[in-house]
């Protein structure tokens, strides 16, 4: 009896989620396979012929191969800012979890503030201009680091609290200096949460649209999200190309999802619940 309801319920749930969650993605894929005329119908139909590679080529070479530049820029921003985030956030999380001083309350407050307060956009632009960082990849990387530090710190701090302090002390007795303790004992033990951090932050930064829109104007510095946004008007009559573009920028998160599903879910829930 119980068995049967669970099977019926299962089929109903699978069917419902298929309609709601899978069909939009199938729609993207189908559109990316179509030619311009068929895609203009914007319906859920089988493609007349295989046009995916033509579409990809078309999208990639638009505006002087801007897509290539954009992928390089996005990758660069993502890799460098995530690397900096990992090291800096782990250092903060380590000291914050281990040493209780009267400043801890203030630091925790600043972390929470960073999660809640929307960045003041125009003053930031003004400041970046003053620092000669406005519209540069360096500036964009530092912005991503600044905005995403609080979340990474929270992830790390929660995890460091589970590493026994005795390990630090054993290392000290063994003759370790603070940097030895951090790099040889603590950081290797943080590997699981580092993976989580890498995955979650990479996806977030790669998908970031708002911050590059403000801080990274100009075609030379376009990111993939900006490129998609800019192509929207250009492709307004070529839905096959628009959806090919969407498909292309969905592939990186899909790959990450296939390989790191568990870490992403663990990281997002842990960070959220602890925060």
């Amino acid at each position: 009896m119980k068995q049967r309801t669970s099977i019926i319920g299962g089929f109903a749930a699978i069917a419902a989620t298929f309609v709601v969650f899978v069909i939009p993605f199938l729609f993207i894929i189908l559109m990316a396979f179509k030619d311009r005329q068929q895609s203009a119908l914007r319906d859920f139909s089988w493609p007349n012929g295989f046009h995916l590679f033509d579409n990809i080529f078309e999208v990639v070479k638009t505006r002087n191969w801007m897509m290539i530049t954009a992928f390089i820029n996005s990758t660069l921003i993502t890799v460098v800012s995530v690397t900096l985030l990992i090291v800096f956030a782990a250092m903060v999380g380590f000291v914050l979890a281990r040493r209780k001083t009267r400043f801890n309350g203030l630091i925790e407050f600043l972390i929470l503030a960073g999660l809640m307060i929307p960045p003041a956009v125009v003053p930031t632009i003004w400041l970046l201009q003053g620092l000669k960082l406005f519209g540069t990849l360096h500036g964009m990387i530092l912005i991503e680091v600044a905005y995403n530090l609080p979340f990474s710190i929270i992830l790390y701090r929660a995890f460091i609290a589970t590493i026994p302090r005795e390990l630090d002390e054993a290392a000290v007795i063994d003759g370790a200096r603070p940097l030895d303790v951090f790099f040889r004992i603590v950081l290797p033990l943080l590997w699981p949460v580092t993976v989580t951090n890498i995955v979650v932050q990479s996806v977030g930064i790669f998908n970031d649209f708002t911050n590059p829109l403000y801080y990274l104007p100009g075609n030379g510095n376009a990111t993939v999200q900006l490129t998609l946004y800019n192509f929207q008007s250009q492709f307004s009559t070529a839905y096959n190309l628009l959806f090919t573009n969407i498909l292309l920028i969905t592939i990186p998160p899909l790959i990450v999802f296939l390989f790191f599903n568990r870490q992403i879910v663990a990281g997002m829930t842990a960070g959220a619940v602890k925060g």
Partner: protein
Amino acid sequence: MAGLELKSLHKSYGDVPVIKGVDLTVEHGEFVVFVGPSGCGKSTLLRMIAGLEDITGGELWIGDKLCNAVEPRDRGIAMVFQNYALYPHMTVYDNIGFGLKLARTPKDIRDSKIREAARILQMEHLLERKPGQLSGGQRQRVAIGRAIVRKPEVFLFDEPLSNLDAALRVDTRMEISKLHQDLGATMIYVTHDQIEAMTLADKIVVLNGGVVQQVGAPIELYQRPANLFVAGFIGSPKMNFMAVTVDNVAANAVTVSGKDLSPVSIPADVTGLTLGDTVTLGIRPHALTIPTTGSVVGRINLVERLGNETIVNLGLTSGISWLAVLDGDHNLATGQTLQLAFDPTSAVIFDGEGRARHPA
């Protein structure tokens, strides 16, 4: 050659003092056990010696070096932690060799030292494993191995057996004892378990509230406890106490009596005791016997018959209860009235300040 000298050591966290002036001398090669209830400061004192806690006041000498501001690695100590504190991401081999690696010991010397330590502890077959693949007892050995490979002058143990099950605890206790004999190093050992303290120590230091209560050989602490705290802490089951009044003072004995006690003369140091003083009488449960008449009377609350001995919980008329451990089996019933007697020389008188008045 390293003994230790603690001179008026103090430690406080903010305004809260936790170690209130400890003076102690530890000879080279001695096995010293710090014992006391949880929160008494025994672990803090050990960690001050290790250099894991700053010293607020006083002096710590290890060998002939003042160590207050010396980094742990330069103190010539090694420590075994309660939860082993093995590095989970390193093999046993690397765990043992980590300190040598940090000290930049050449690889071949490091290797021979690690294998030597493994041989002493009979765990050569475990060297390639990670701590996660070891049993509790094996982890404890690795922790000890990590300590001995550094050839320290002083070994520090922080409740090293508290995570092992009872059988393993006895084995490991004996091994530590043997290690002490083989290495001849100074060892300081913290525990809350008085059996460990009694069996391992050359010298026991009883701590309470950050103050040393008594220092002495194990049997001395049992037979001649310095005060009410030590008397109550050392020995199991706990010593029985009773408030009594001084009826008569002789040259080397006092006669005392109380609500639950008919007058009895007990040998004691009588200096300063006068008629009518309230003092405390202490008798160990094993010192009580059941003759036909006795000086203590009560009703039996509970009887535990273990065959070789019988443990009786006796409710006295004043409301307190005493334990008696009687040799052999006795068929006693709950609710029954029972008289207990004791040899006056086995009783201890404690004065108003709680100091023991052992006869000279």
